[in-house]
């Protein structure tokens, strides 16, 4: 076999390998084709245009007590940064806390889309808000440590935030805020109060 044949067969083999690779890649399930981004594990971080983030804590209480605190404890709501909470008596609507509202350029409406008793509540934003958002709060048994409470939120950021760095910063703030929110809820349920080092109530 001369040198020209080697080149010819080599080129064919390379092209065949590349084509096989493309076919193999195409056959794999892709996260960004998922129609409900927030239901996947948050370590994926991204679903197409959506940034996925979240937080988890374990709380020593029953699932009902945890949901009850989130839905009915008015002392919790003013402390929340990003975790949406029930809006008065309108059963299927959640109210976005201030930090989450600030992410959208127009008022954000959030509607509960799935509710499985003692297990899961899922929501998504509606309307013309630029920041489209899906989220869910899932409860699962964690043995003697209580109930694992996981919140995952998938957010398609507003146009101005789509530059990658801004988007990453937004996701980081969201993740930290959700963790803080869950920890405040844990404190309120387990200890009956939210810890503070302030020395006077007017500064608390």
């Amino acid at each position, binding site marked *: 076999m001369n040198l020209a044949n080697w080149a010819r067969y080599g080129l064919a083999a390379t092209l065949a390998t590349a084509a096989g690779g493309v076919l193999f890649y195409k056959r794999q399930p892709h996260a960004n084709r998922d129609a409900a981004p927030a239901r996947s594990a948050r370590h994926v971080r991204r679903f197409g245009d959506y940034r996925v983030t979240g937080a988890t804590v374990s709380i020593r209480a029953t699932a009902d007590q945890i949901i009850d605190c989130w839905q009915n404890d008015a002392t919790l709501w003013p402390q929340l940064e990003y975790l949406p909470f029930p809006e008065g008596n309108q059963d299927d609507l959640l109210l976005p806390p201030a930090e989450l509202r600030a992410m959208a350029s127009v008022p954000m409406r959030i509607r509960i889309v799935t509710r499985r008793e003692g297990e899961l509540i899922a929501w998504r934003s509606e309307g013309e808000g630029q920041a489209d958002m899906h989220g869910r709060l899932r409860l699962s048994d964690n043995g*003697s440590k209580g109930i694992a409470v996981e919140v995952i939120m998938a957010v398609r950021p507003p146009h101005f935030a789509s530059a990658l760095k801004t988007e990453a910063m937004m996701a980081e703030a969201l993740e*930290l805020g959700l963790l803080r929110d869950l920890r405040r809820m*844990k404190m309120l349920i387990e*200890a009956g109060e939210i*810890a*503070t*080092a302030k020395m*006077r109530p007017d500064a608390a």
Partner: protein
Amino acid sequence: MRAATFQGKGTIDVRHMPDPKIVNPRDAIIEVTSTAICGSDLHLYDGVIPGVEKDDILGHEFMGRVLDVGRDSTLTIGQRVVVPFTIFCGHCFQCSEQRYSACDNSCPVEEQEVAEKAFGYPLAGMFGYSHLTGGYAGGQAEYVRIPYSDVLPLVVPDDIPDDRLLFLSDILPTGWMAALNAEIEPGDTIAVWGCGPVGLFTILSAFQQKAGRVIAIDGVPGRLAMAESLGAEPVNFHETDILDALKQMTGGVGPDAVIDAVGMEAHGFSIDNIADKIKQTVGMGQDRAHVLRQAIMACRKGGRVSVPGVYGGKADLFPLGAMMQKGLQLRTGQTHVRRYTDELLDMIERDVIDPSFLISHRLPLDDAAKGYRNFRDHQDEWIKVVMQP
């Protein structure tokens, strides 16, 4: 109120600060009757613990009388209490297992992130011990706000003086837990590095827990003399090769358990310690871990290593190979104070132990700066400083 405040590395000033008030339903306010300077306060004073801010009120060893109570407190006004330095809620998973110094809920959420980055998880709250542990105001003050006052403070009888009770807030349970972590079997030989207050209470506790021999290692003659008075065999590291001495004193076997009651500011002129000192000075490292390295090397095969000394960073040259190859067990942690206080109070009431022997100096709170300076610079005489606000 007057309070000892941090004003920068090596600078303590007693200043007027706002009086604390009830903030949460489980709170109480106490009027401090006695407070002490702890060896670990010197880590803050020396600037080797991060997260201390100007005007932070220091002090985590204190006791006093209840002045005011929140709606859910179970204390009554006028009761006398000793307050553990580790703050805990009493209801989380960690508290349910009596790991009070690992409480999930006592560090304010907004203060948790730095510790979580440094250590993987946030820490429990502590009084007067930097914003890594919540930024709570400390007890070197006239008044202190006590969170979770229905579970945290130890109510003590009126007929026992402060001097015998004050150290239940930290160093006595810390010494006790250090000895427990060494899993002492009757007749064991225990080596304790550091004859400061915690080291001395560790020696006392080791004997209470049936150690046969305790070898005390330090470089300050006055402190070694106190260790000897408790029954320990003193070894001065300035005059002796410690590894050689310990081998010789234990028939070539090594101590059954070793206890590092020194922590992150070890002294001495070994090469590793000089390197650590340089790194600490230029901000490239926090821990001078010479004692821990030496203790691990000295421990017998299959022995136990207990570390009550405070560390805050990532020590270099950690002898992991010696740990693994000799099959050592390492136990450490901030003290779960309240787990041990009932038992220790009982021993004090029955005169089995009297912790007040440790007190070398008494000062008014206004002399806090002098107390800190001398406690650090004149360790031969200034063993333990107690202040009265």
